[in-house]
């Protein structure tokens, strides 16, 4: 493979990772959703580029699904939910911006260190795709842990799933059926989340998940 092709694959995959870190940095819900949509677009570009490089046309379908479902439908729906819940002006209190970023960077370093020896023999594109994919998955988890707003946690889950797709494109021979079913289950999960968020809102008058902890018997000081 010529270096330029590799460089462009690197560019798109790293773009997904950078946008994952940007998700951690945002503290407004609308900005979080917009960055998530951008991440889905970059992901679909990355997958599309892989399909050209690998000569695998079914990856094009994956890219298309990612673009339509996660680049357009889910962000639009999330914007509507946020508007209906009337939380689109809220500034979310992140645990601590700097600390979260440092933790995120540590996770990126960790995943690179982990993946590097495991797939040493694989070709460089697959190797870096795995490293970035693991990092994106871990950053999605971090986003879900550090945020208190249910909508942001949904975005964290969805960006975690972006990481899975990135890993799947690096591994050759992922059947299209798996892709379609994953995309479908994500859409179903999104609908379930949507209903769930509205139920939380109805019950507790807020989408701050810390309120739920009272019902687990873990009363916190700052409530």
């Amino acid at each position, binding site marked *: 493979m010529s270096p330029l092709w590799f460089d462009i694959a690197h560019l798109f995959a790293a773009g997904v990772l950078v946008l994952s*870190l940007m998700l951690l*940095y945002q503290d407004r819900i609308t900005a979080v959703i917009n960055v998530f949509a951008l991440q889905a677009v970059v992901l679909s570009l990355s997958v599309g580029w892989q399909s050209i490089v690998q000569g695998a046309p079914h990856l094009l379908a994956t890219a298309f699904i990612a673009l339509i479902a996660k680049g357009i439908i889910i962000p639009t729906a999330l914007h509507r939910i946020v508007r209906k819940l009337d939380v689109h002006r809220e500034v979310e209190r992140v645990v601590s911006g*700097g600390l979260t970023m440092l933790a995120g960077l540590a996770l990126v370093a960790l995943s690179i260190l982990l993946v590097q020896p495991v797939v040493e023999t694989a070709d460089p594109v697959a190797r870096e795709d795995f490293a970035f994919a693991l990092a994106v998955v871990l950053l999605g988890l971090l986003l879900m842990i550090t945020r208190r707003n249910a909508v942001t946690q949904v975005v964290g889950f969805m960006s975690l799933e972006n990481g899975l797709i990135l890993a799947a494109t690096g591994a050759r021979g992922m059947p299209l059926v798996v892709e379609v079913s994953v995309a479908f289950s994500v859409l179903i999960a999104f609908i379930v989340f949507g209903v769930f968020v509205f139920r939380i809102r109805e019950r507790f008058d807020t989408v701050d998940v810390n309120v739920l902890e009272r019902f687990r018997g873990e009363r916190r000081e700052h409530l």
Partner: protein
Amino acid sequence: MALTVELALQLLQIGMVVAIAPLIMGITRKVRARLLRRRGPPLVQPYLDLWKLMHKEVVVAPNASWVYRRAPYVVFAATWVAAGLVPTYATGLLFSWSADLIAVIALLGTARFALALAGMDVGTAFGGLGSSREMMIASLAEPAMLLISFAVALIAGTTQLSAIAALFSTGDVGVRVSLGLALLALIVVGIAENARIPIDNPATHLELTMVHEAMILEYSGRHLAMIEAAAQLKLVLYFSLVACLFAPFGMAVGGDQSALALGIGIVTFLGKLAVFAVLLPIAETTVAKMRVFRYPAFVGSAFAAAALAVFLRFVSRGF
């Protein structure tokens, strides 16, 4: 004979940065004023200001020590040396072996140290406040700056600015995410270090928001002129650093010292500076000044981007 020419070329660079620094500052002020629908001062106003300050009497507080009197010259000298070392119109000049990225960072650190000491010397509340804030920003920006230099050095294989510029201008480096992230981080660090708008307002005299201005509040006359000139030089330094690392086209590379190559180098360098001097105020007018407590998040993002640049370099090329 050859040595004389090389020395002359190096001195031309050192002289050029100090000669155009006020003009570059004048352009940014003019553009900013025009964007705010004001007429703005003429482009040569910074030269006139420096001239006026040089001829004014120096008023020194009675309890000022020698640190207060010497600091402006130290600040100016360190900044001038750093700005004169960064390759501008040609690589491989006489002193370019010493134009190391880490050395430039260290020189700027020296200048900042002297200025912060001077801010605290007289013992006014403002000076101390300014010094403390300046040190807070520096403690965030300097690690980011070092990581940027590591990211660039890992790709180029050297920290010598002249060699990096020569390598990057060949275009063999290709598309690099690491370089993009490093550029982003360098812009944020440059904004923080030059006291530009999201971090500090260079034109403010509102005490709550002052950082740089608070430190130099007690200065007057030629001392103030030295500090102002150093601030203008620092802006040119960051502009030429960005130009040399990320847009090295047009530079006279590899000891090509024909008049044509050098002429192209000088013209493109001045053009790049003018473009940056127009872009900076445009970016500045689109954002609002940040609260002091938001600085760590903003400058920390530069650190994060630079660290990511280093990591990504490792992924793409292995350890």
